C-alpha cells in the first residue's frame, strides 16, 4: 500500500511544518482553496479541521479532497463528537480510497461550546479507541472483527497538551495513544519554550514524532482571551507586553514575528521534530511566519 508523503517526511529526519486549514461555513470554497494553493508547497502537510470548536462547517473530508485534488498532502482531522463507530470507519474507508492517507484522531470539543448547542454529542469512541480502530482496519478487520474486502493504510497521529495542569493525567493518555499506534503528535499551542523543552525530554523516550503547536497571536485581546478561556494554553506576560508595545496596528506584525522566532528557536536547538501552525483565520500570513522563521 502507498506510504503517505507525510509519513516519508516524518521519517526523513527533516524539521517538519504542517499548517491548519479551516473549511468555511457554507459551500463557497474560494477562500479555503486559495489558502490551499498558497500553502500546499510550503508545508509538509495541511490539516483540515473537523467542525472546529464544535461549530458546524464544510466537512474535513471534503476539505481534504480539495487539498488532494490540488496536489497537496492532507491530514484528515477526525473527532469522535459527531459520528459513531460505523460512520467513523466508513469515512476512514472513503478517505483511503481517495488517497487521503493521514489522519489525526481527536476526541473533539464538547457540543456545548459550539453553535449547535442542543445537538447530541456522540463520543461513541474516544481518541485512543479511534487510533486502535485505524490500526485494526489496517489489519483487515473492522471493529466488530469482520473481514474487510480491501483495507486501509494511514499515517495516524494524535494530540497532546504539554502545558496542562495537572500534567500527569495528560501524559498517561499520551502514552495510551502511543501504545494505540499514534505515529505523530501535533501539540496544543505552546508559548513557554522552556516548559515545552521539559515535556520533550519526557516525550523523547517514545518512538513518535512531535510537532509543536504554534498559534499565531494577533492582538493583546486575543492573548488575554486565550489565558482566560482556552484550557491548557498559557501566553506568558512578556509576550503579552511585547504585543502591547508593538504600537497601534502593529500587533499582528509582532505576532508573526513571535511565531517565527519561536519556530526558529525550536528548529535551531532541535527541541522537537517540527511545528504545526494554527493561524486561525489568518492563513494568509503563514508564508510570512515561515519567512521570519528562516524556513
Amino acid at each position, binding site marked *: 500500500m502507498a506510504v503517505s508523503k507525510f509519513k516519508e517526511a516524518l521519517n526523513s529526519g527533516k524539521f517538519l511544518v504542517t499548517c491548519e486549514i479551516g473549511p468555511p461555513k457554507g459551500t463557497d470554497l474560494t477562500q479555503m482553496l486559495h489558502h490551499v494553493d498558497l500553502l500546499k508547497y510550503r508545508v509538509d502537510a495541511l490539516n483540515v479541521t473537523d467542525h472546529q470548536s464544535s461549530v458546524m462547517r464544510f466537512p474535513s473530508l471534503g476539505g481534504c479532497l480539495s487539498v488532494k485534488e490540488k496536489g497537496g498532502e492532507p491530514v484528515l482531522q477526525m473527532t*469522535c*463528537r459527531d459520528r459513531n*463507530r460505523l460512520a467513523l470507519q466508513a469515512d476512514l474507508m472513503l478517505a483511503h480510497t481517495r488517497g487521503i492517507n493521514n489522519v489525526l484522531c481527536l*476526541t*473533539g*470539543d*464538547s457540543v*456545548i*461550546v459550539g453553535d449547535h448547542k442542543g445537538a447530541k*454529542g456522540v*463520543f*461513541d*469512541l*474516544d*481518541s*485512543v*479507541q479511534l487510533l*486502535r480502530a485505524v490500526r485494526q482496519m489496517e489489519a483487515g478487520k473492522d*471493529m466488530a472483527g469482520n473481514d474487510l474486502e480491501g483495507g486501509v493504510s494511514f499515517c495516524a497521529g494524535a*494530540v*497532546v*497538551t504539554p502545558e*496542562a*495542569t*495537572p500534567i*500527569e*493525567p*495528560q501524559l*498517561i*493518555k499520551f*502514552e*495510551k495513544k502511543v*501504545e*494505540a499506534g499514534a505515529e505523530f503528535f501535533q501539540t*496544543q499551542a505552546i508559548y513557554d519554550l522552556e516548559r515545552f523543552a521539559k515535556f520533550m525530554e519526557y516525550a523523547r523516550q517514545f518512538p513518535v514524532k512531535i510537532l509543536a503547536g504554534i498559534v499565531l497571536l494577533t492582538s493583546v485581546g486575543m492573548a488575554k482571551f486565550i489565558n482566560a478561556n482556552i*484550557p*491548557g494554553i498559557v501566553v506568558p506576560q512578556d509576550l503579552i507586553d511585547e504585543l502591547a508595545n508593538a504600537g497601534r496596528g502593529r500587533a499582528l506584525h509582532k505576532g508573526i514575528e513571535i511565531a517565527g522566532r519561536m519556530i526558529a528557536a525550536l528548529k535551531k536547538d532541535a527541541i522537537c521534530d517540527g511545528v504545526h501552525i494554527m493561524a486561525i483565520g489568518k492563513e494568509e500570513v503563514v508564508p510570512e511566519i515561515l519567512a521570519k522563521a528562516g524556513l
Partner: protein
Amino acid sequence: MRSITKRKTLDEIQQYLKGFDHVYILGCGTCTTMTRTGGKDQVLEMRDYLEGLEKTITGWTVIPIACDEMTEVAMKENERPIRNAGCVLVMACALGVHRISTYTNNPVIPALDTLFIGLEEKPGHFREVCIQCGQCVLGETAGICPVSECNKGLLNGPCGGTNDGKCEVDKEKDCAWTLIYRRLKLQGRLDLMRKYHPPKNYQTAPRPKSVRIRTSEENQDGSV
C-alpha cells in the same frame, strides 16, 4: 437514589393545558417533594396559578410515592374529581407520570421535566452520578463514574479541554478524570488509569430495557 426534576415554564404548562378548563393536580411525596418541584406547597401554588387563569381545579392530592403501585389506590379514592377534570396535571417525575397514566383514561400532562437520577450531595445540591449504562466501571475508576460525570463519557482518560481540574463545559464543574486520577493516585492504583478500555457496548440491554425476576421454579430448569 432520587429522580431529579425541574418545573416546565408556566408558558409551556399553559400551552399544554389549552382547551382544558377543568384540571386535577397530582403531586408526589417523595422525590419531587424533596426537590421542591411537586410537593404540597408547589401543588397549591400551581392550583392558585391555574385558578388565576380561570381554570377550575376539581381537586388535588400528593401521592406518597407516585411511581409506586399504591398510586392506584390513591387514584381510586379520588376517582370522582379526577373524572370530573378534563386532564390530570402531574407534578411527579416521569416515572410517576407513567404510573398515573396507567390508572386513568384522562389525558395526563407532565408539569415537570425529569433531568436525571442523582444524589443529594448537600441540602439542595443534586448531582448525576449514574446513567444506568449497564456496564459498571466504578471498580476501576475509584468510585467516580466517567460515563456519567465526564461530559463526553470518556473511558481512557481526560480530554484536552480540562484545566486546573475543571471541565471545559463548565469552569465550576470538576473534571471527572482529574478526580479519578487523584483518587487512584491516593490509593496507589494509578496503573488502572493506564489500562486500555475498549469501546463500550451500548447495547448491553437494548432499549427499551426490561428485567424480569424469575421465580425459583423457573430457575430449576437451568434458565437464568
